[in-house]
């Protein structure tokens, strides 16, 4: 193992533990007003009239008319309004805001508005959605001929549910508008996304918009998109009133108005020849995008590019669509389309194995991707894929095959708990899709040497990137990379809290790209800075720093030469590099209550070189538990567009009592374009567990599990059918 993998104590632990870390809700500004937003309690309607209550002096109504540039947030697509105009398209859509000195008064005023609507037909079920935002197709090989000559064709449909990110810190923003400059402070993942969105919304020049990140209490994708809406609303109020304006969503509001993971409906047709070989797949993938497109097209790309899972299928046709429904827009959530696609791909293989009378692992193993294979987009897997080693390790840790055999042959005793075990394989392409990193993001990273903040005789190294610390450990892992590249102690290197007036645009904190892409640029910039420092005489260097100068190095992303991508046909290398996982989950199902207990969870990961084994393990364990909950206890149903689960009381995220310790193991497989060999990691644990969980439940119950979350009610209904 590389020495950088040795864990360090995070320097943000103590201030977070003592409560002294400052989150958005903790910040007060002089003369600050609060903003409360009235959201629609109507699913789809034309606004006929808004009846205003009496508005006391000092309180200001903010509407769609307060956006001189455009009343649309720029979240990839530019279609989601900050406030509704003539129509509301979903329950919970922001209609207007009230800014004023007393929050409770703002909330009361909101409740006194009445809105008259003309009801319009609403789409509440993905199956009934007729319109789409995106319709993408991919062809690999010659699926048509393979289906024509198939001996058998299997067809299965899979469904996955909505999932709430449930970061512990609800969303919040503070906007100030002073001397024509807009400053936003808040809980966020992507400072430059917000900056661009606000420049468009208010028609402001780049130097007139500044975004500062406050301590961010978890995000998981949930603070990639909605912060652009929230900051727009707060900014409009700050501009209208000339006062600082703060908006904090309480938990129920946060769950009502913010995007969640896209529900999906995925149908597989699989062609098998007379020798029992899978020759082709025809996959139809529909995602429930909700009422506005926002970033759904990109989520769909991630889903369809990995549509066959970790399996090499020679001939593939995929059609993917983002369906328009009258639901809150779906958005980013760790995995970003991958968890839906991988669940379906895994259970398709699982079902086919049963149809062919094979153990699931025997069938799956035969098709696992190997180096040199072609992906769904006909890109080449150029790096080694270590599935053999990973399988050995997971067998050793979990005893999968032996247990699978034992549970298959076990005679059920009435009312005694039934065991099952499942295995899944997953891939996660790191960073932006295709040539997105080079053509769209153009990540720029800066490292500086300047006078030490604690000792004016000494120097310090400053990391300047727009990627945020949101709990995942980016600040420390980036510090480790810079320190190691410069051969300096960790305490000489400082991570700068992202502030768009200070840091260059190194891109958003998404897509498992922070270490793999930004970390590599940082590594190269730090090595370059070290060279510059070595080239100077020590006395000149310290004299220059004492005079207040800085020495710096910057690096901009250039994609590896061998990468090729054609966005118009979705052909080529969809991602610069892939990370891989194998998951095993063991369950026990009570045949009387149908309750499912997870008895064990094991995973082996290939994320290249771990930059810090404890931070990485924390990512993997946290992600695995999120994914096990996605598969079982986290149910969010929309009933006529209204979430039936509206708070932590009825939408149950895991407690300490719901899942056991989740074991994780890493294999060493350094990635040549990553810092010290590191590649994508953060999203990977959310990709595989659902397929392993469902396979385990399938073995324990003898049922086909084609939809998640699997609840006791669902099992009972299936068994009684």
């Amino acid at each position, binding site marked *: 193992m590389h020495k950088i993998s040795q*864990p360090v*104590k*995070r320097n*943000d*632990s*103590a*201030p*977070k*533990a*003592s*409560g*002294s*870390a*400052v*989150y958005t*809700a*903790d910040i007060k500004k002089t003369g600050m007003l609060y903003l409360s937003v009235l959201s629609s309690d109507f699913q789809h309607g034309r606004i006929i009239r808004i009846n205003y209550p009496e508005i006391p002096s000092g309180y200001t109504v903010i509407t769609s008319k307060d956006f001189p540039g455009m009343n649309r947030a720029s979240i990839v697509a530019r279609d989601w309004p900050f406030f509704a105009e003539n129509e509301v398209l979903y329950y919970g859509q922001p209609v207007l805001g009230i800014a004023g000195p007393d929050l409770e008064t703002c909330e009361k005023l909101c409740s006194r508005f009445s809105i008259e609507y003309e009801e319009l037909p609403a789409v509440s079920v993905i199956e009934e959605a007729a319109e789409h935002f995106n319709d993408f197709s991919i062809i690999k090989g010659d699926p048509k001929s393979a289906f024509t000559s198939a001996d058998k064709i299997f067809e299965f449909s899979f469904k996955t549910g909505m999932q709430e*990110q*449930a*970061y*512990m*810190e*609800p969303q919040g923003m503070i906007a100030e508008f002073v001397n024509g400059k807009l400053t936003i402070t808040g809980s966020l993942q992507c400072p430059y996304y917000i900056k661009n969105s606000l420049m468009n919304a208010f028609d402001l020049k780049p130097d007139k918009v500044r975004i500062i990140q406050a*301590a*961010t*209490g*978890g*995000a*998981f994708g949930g603070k990639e998109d909605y912060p652009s809406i929230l900051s727009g609303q707060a900014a409009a109020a700050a501009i209208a009133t000339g006062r600082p304006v703060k908006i904090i969503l*309480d*938990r*129920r509001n946060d769950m009502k108005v913010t995007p969640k993971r896209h529900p999906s409906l995925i149908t597989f047709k699989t062609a098998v020849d007379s020798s029992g070989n899978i020759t082709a797949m025809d996959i139809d993938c529909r995602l429930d995008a909700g009422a506005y497109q926002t970033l759904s097209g990109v989520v769909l790309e991630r889903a369809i590019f990995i549509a066959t899972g970790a399996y090499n299928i020679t001939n593939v046709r995929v059609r993917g669509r983002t369906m328009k429904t009258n639901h809150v827009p779906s958005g980013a959530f760790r995995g970003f389309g991958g968890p839906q696609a991988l669940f379906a791909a895994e259970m398709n293989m699982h079902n086919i194995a049963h149809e062919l009378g094979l153990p699931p692992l025997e069938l799956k193993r035969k098709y696992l991707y190997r180096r040199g294979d072609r992906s769904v987009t006909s890109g080449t897997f150029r790096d080694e894929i270590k599935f053999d080693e990973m399988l050995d390790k997971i067998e050793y840790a979990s005893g999968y095959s032996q247990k699978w055999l034992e549970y298959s042959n076990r005679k059920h005793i009435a009312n005694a708990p039934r065991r099952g075990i499942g295995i899944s394989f997953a891939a996660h392409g790191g960073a932006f899709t295709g040539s997105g990193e080079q053509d769209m993001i153009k990540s720029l990273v800066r490292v500086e040497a300047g006078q030490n903040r604690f000792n004016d005789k000494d120097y310090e190294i400053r990391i300047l990137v727009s990627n945020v610390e*949101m*709990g*995942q*450990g980016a600040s420390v892992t980036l510090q480790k990379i810079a320190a190691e590249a410069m051969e300096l102690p960790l305490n000489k290197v400082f991570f700068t809290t992202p502030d768009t007036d200070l840091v260059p645009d190194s891109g958003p904190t998404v897509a498992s790209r922070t270490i793999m892409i930004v970390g590599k640029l940082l590594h190269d910039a730090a090595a370059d800075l070290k060279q510059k420092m070595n080239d100077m005489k020590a006395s000149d260097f310290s004299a220059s720093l004492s005079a207040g100068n800085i020495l710096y190095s910057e690096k901009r992303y250039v994609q590896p030469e061998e990468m090729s991508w054609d966005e118009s046909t979705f052909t080529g290398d969809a991602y610069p590099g892939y990370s891989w996982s194998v998951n095993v989950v063991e369950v026990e199902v009570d045949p009387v209550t149908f309750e499912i207990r997870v008895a064990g969870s094991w995973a082996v990961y290939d994320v290249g070189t771990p930059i810090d084994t*404890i*931070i990485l*393990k*924390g990512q993997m*364990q*946290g*992600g*695995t*538990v*999120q994914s096990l909950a996605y598969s079982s206890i986290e149910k969010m149903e929309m009933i006529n567009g209204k979430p039936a689960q509206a*708070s*932590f*009381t009825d939408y149950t*995220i*895991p*407690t*300490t*009592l719901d*899942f056991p*310790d*989740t074991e994780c193991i890493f294999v060493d497989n350094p990635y040549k374009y990553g810092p010290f060999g590191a590649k994508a990691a953060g999203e990977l644990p959310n990709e595989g567990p659902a397929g392993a969980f469902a396979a385990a439940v399938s073995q324990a119950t003898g049922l086909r599990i084609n939809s998640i979350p699997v609840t006791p009610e669902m099992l009972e209904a299936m068994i009684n059918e």
Partner: protein
Amino acid sequence: MNDRILLNVSIDGRDCSFETETDRRLLDLLREDAGITGVREGCGEGECGACSIFLDGKLVNSCCIPAVAADGSSIVTIEGFSKTPEFDIISDAYAEAGAVQCGFCTPGFIMATAALLREIPIPDDNQIRTALSGNLCRCTGYSMIIDAVRIASKNFHSASSPLDQQYGGLNDT
């Protein structure tokens, strides 16, 4: 408007008086009036435990308690607790185990850990999981938090310095 009443309460060893509304939550009094923002609001309905405090030595969710109910009580928040040696041991254990990621839930977990270790100095895994089941964390999946409690328990036993008793710290162990 609601009636305003005067209430007296000891917060982190300081006697304080507040004039407040009868329907005000203790959490808001602590965060807004007393300025103790380390007491976090994660859900506002007693599910997440981020607003945990000690009220007369008992671990409670301050979002579920009317401020008036605290009249005459003694409150310890994370701000006061963080100045004790007991906190240092627990906080160091959390750092060592990697149990702090986004940190929003951490003050609540620290308080719940202290409450557990006062009651059961050497808890087993079930006792740890049960004691912390009123606190939600979305980042860690809990394994490292449970490790942290084990480490803290062990370090309390090896700590040579007498523990601060002011906030009801551990008895001799």
